[in-house]
Structures are given as C-alpha cells and as structure tokens.
C-alpha cells in the first residue's frame, strides 16, 4: 500500500476528472451522474455539488471556499470535501496534481 501521509490531499492540489470520466446532470434520474466506460455512478446531492466544482483549474481550497459560500448554513466544509475527494481518488474517478 502507498504511504498515506505522503499521499494526503493538500488544499493546494488541483483535482481533475480522470480520462474517460464525464460528470453530468440526468433529468430522468433527477441527479448528477458520473459516466465512464460502460459504467455509471449516481451521485447524491453533496457528491454532485463537490464534483460539480471540479474544472481542472481550481485547487481544493478554492472549491471549499466556493461550496462554503453556496451553503453558508453548513459551516466549515474542508474536512468533508477532502474526505470525499480522497474517496473519489481511490475509486479512480479523479486525479490530483
């Protein structure tokens, strides 16, 4: 297993979708999905909100700030966002640079 500390997500990391992954809204499912070769993941609302911020340009910190501004009643989100992005990376949905 890779060294976890070394691989921890930093707030300056820039996430982007892995090659072949497409994020989109599906009216028939009333939600966001992540599409990839012969597969599809239906995302819940918070997963959709986080992945919807990924544009390959902005870093984790920018994404957290954006989400905290959009959902002011939820308080600090950094830990939740990083936890989810880590899950997304383990699933090979995203890459960070």
């Amino acid at each position, binding site marked *: 297993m890779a060294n976890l500390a070394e691989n921890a997500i930093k707030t300056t990391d820039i996430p982007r979708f892995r090659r072949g992954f497409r994020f989109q809204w599906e009216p028939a499912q009333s939600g966001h999905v992540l599409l990839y070769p012969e*597969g599809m993941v239906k995302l819940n609302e918070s997963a959709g909100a986080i992945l919807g911020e990924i544009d390959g340009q902005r870093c984790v910190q920018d994404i957290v700030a954006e989400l905290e501004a959009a959902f002011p009643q939820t308080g600090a989100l950094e830990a939740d966002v990083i936890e989810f992005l880590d899950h997304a990376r383990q699933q090979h949905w995203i890459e960070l640079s």
Partner: protein
Amino acid sequence: MTSLTSSLTGQKPTGIGPPLWLLAELTYRCPLQCPYCSNPLDFAQSETELSTEEWVRVLRQGREMGAAQLGFSGGEPLVRQDLGELIAEARHLGYYSNLITSGLGLTQAKVESFAEAGLDHIQVSFQASDPELNNAVAGSRKAFEQKLAMARAVKEAGYPMVLNFVIHRHNIHQMNDIVALCDRLGADYVELATCQYYGWAFKNREGLMPSRAQLEKAEHEVNQNRARLLDEGSAMQLIFVTPDYYEERPKPCMNGWGSLFLTVAPDGTALPCHSARLLPIDFPNVRDKDLKHIWYESSGFNHYRGDSWMPEPCRSCDEKEKDFGGCRCQAFLLTGNADNADPVCSKSPHHDRILAARQAADHATAGIEELTYRNAGNSRLFFRS
C-alpha cells in the same frame, strides 16, 4: 456491463425505471469468426439492418426516456459506414458512447475522427496474448497485429483504454502474459471475461469451458497481479468475470428483466438483453413501435418483470429479490423452459446439468480446430425453417 450493475448500488425502483443502458447492435456482419460469439446461431438469416434515420430515431427515443450509456456493438460495428454520423448524434443527445470493436476495420484516421465526433470510449477485444493463438481463435491471420496497432492509436487519441479478453480453456493459462501485454499498452481497464455459454459459445461449450483447476489457477494469478499493480501505484484495473457454471447461486441477470438494459438488434428487434432473441417470446420491433411503448407496454418486456411468473423453487426463495431467479436464457438453454430457476443455482432441480458440464470440462480434450466457427456458412446450418 458488469461494471454498471455493480456500481448502481441500491438502485431498485419500485415501479418500472427507465432503460439507463441502450445497446445498439448495428450489424451482425463481422470479419472475425470467434467460436464464442454471443450473436444468435442463425444470425445469417437476419439480413435487413436499420437505416441511419431509423437508428437516429432509436437514439433520440432512448435518450428522451433517460438512457445515458450507449453501446455501439455488433457483429463489428465498424462495417457500418454511418458509424461516425451515429456517434455525432449520440454526443449531441448527451449519451456516454462506447464503441465495442474487434479493431478490424479501424484506422488511425477513424480513431481520431470518432473522438472529434464525441465518442467517449473504444473497447478493443483480443482473443489471446500472442498472435498465433489470437488469430487461431479469431479465425483471421492478421487480426493480432491490427489489434495492437489500434489499441495504441486509441491510447494516443486520449480515450480511456479498455481491453477485453474472452477467456476459455485454450487461453486461460495466459493470465500473466495478458496482464503484461495490457501493462505495456497502458490499459486503464482490462476485462478478463470468462466465456458465458449463449449463442455460439453454448454450441461450443465442451470445447471452451475451463476445468475448475484451470479456473482457480487463473483467479489466483489475477489476484497476484492485482496486488502487484496496487503496490506499484498503477491505476490499471483488472475485472475478472467468473463463469456462471462455477457458481452456486445465479447472477441477477441484467439486474432484472427490463430493469436497466435495452438492446436493439440489427433488424430493429428490441430485447431485454442481447441473448434473449433465442427465447420463444414475441419481441417488439422499433420499426413498429416507439421505445417508450416497447419498454413499458410490450408483452415481451413485461414477460419476466416482477415475480408472479416464478415457479418453485424461486417462488418461495428468500433470495428471489436478489437474483430474480437468475438468467432466463440459461434456464431455457439448459431446461427447455425459460420460466425455470437458472440451473446454476444449487437449489434448482436441474443443477445436475451444471455439474455434468463441470465434470465434462475436467476431461475435455478437444482442440481449437474442433470448434464450430461463427460465420455465415455455419450459421446457415442452424436456420429454423
């Protein structure tokens, strides 16, 4: 397709949900002759193909209903001259489109123009890790080199690389070589799909089915390779599909009849899976009805929805919600009645047929040359009058 069902966890709508996966079998024509082809034995009887306009209409109707994944398959879909046009339409509609190809007929220029048209993914199938065996199984002398060249072109054009190997008793010893080849090509996903016995594969079952010892060795090698890839930090994923014939419980086939998948065959026949054509059920045609009617109203698609059709032992089984009694096609092929429990299930009164097939696999000696190859000449021998 297995990846779709496994990732849609908890997706079990109470009513009839929309078909999220549309498989467009554009043609039964194919330059290869793989003896495990899932096309019907009598495919050569079906000579008419939907026109470009008809396919566009099918794609629009499917997308309106909620289909998000689209597969272009066949036969070999590349023999259709309008494939580029259909890809562009699919992208325009918002589908995630997958081209499932042998790689024969593909060119660097096509790989690039399809990417521009919006194709998301090309899956190239291989028959083995070396040219001799690959070409012997495919029934084509030049297939392997072409596949390698096209796999590289797919990677260069920026597509995710998915390589598919159908595994059977004649190539199951090649797991390490196959993984090494995929590693060299830089694959993202490798599907090691052990042959399932429908269509031509059912006809050739005795010559294809691995023994349990072969299977266990292969699975062990795949697991070792997985551990090594994880250690190396590789993102390459190995998907090993175990054959139904070595299970004790049936698979939840297609995640339930008419639940997620809709296949349209080359002549427009709409099916709940690509094998269902062999069942003695009247399936609708997209030339006569729109997809919405076909999916929600037709007797063919409603035939095995719910569980009121189930005989024992499925009817009173506490796992019926989980596996829906297994695969209707397998029940039909092995028992002559598609209502029966899938004989893969150890509770099935017909499970002895699976046990007999396993036993036969332990003693099989037939070589590749004894298999019946999938081609128009052999297909004509299977025409029902």
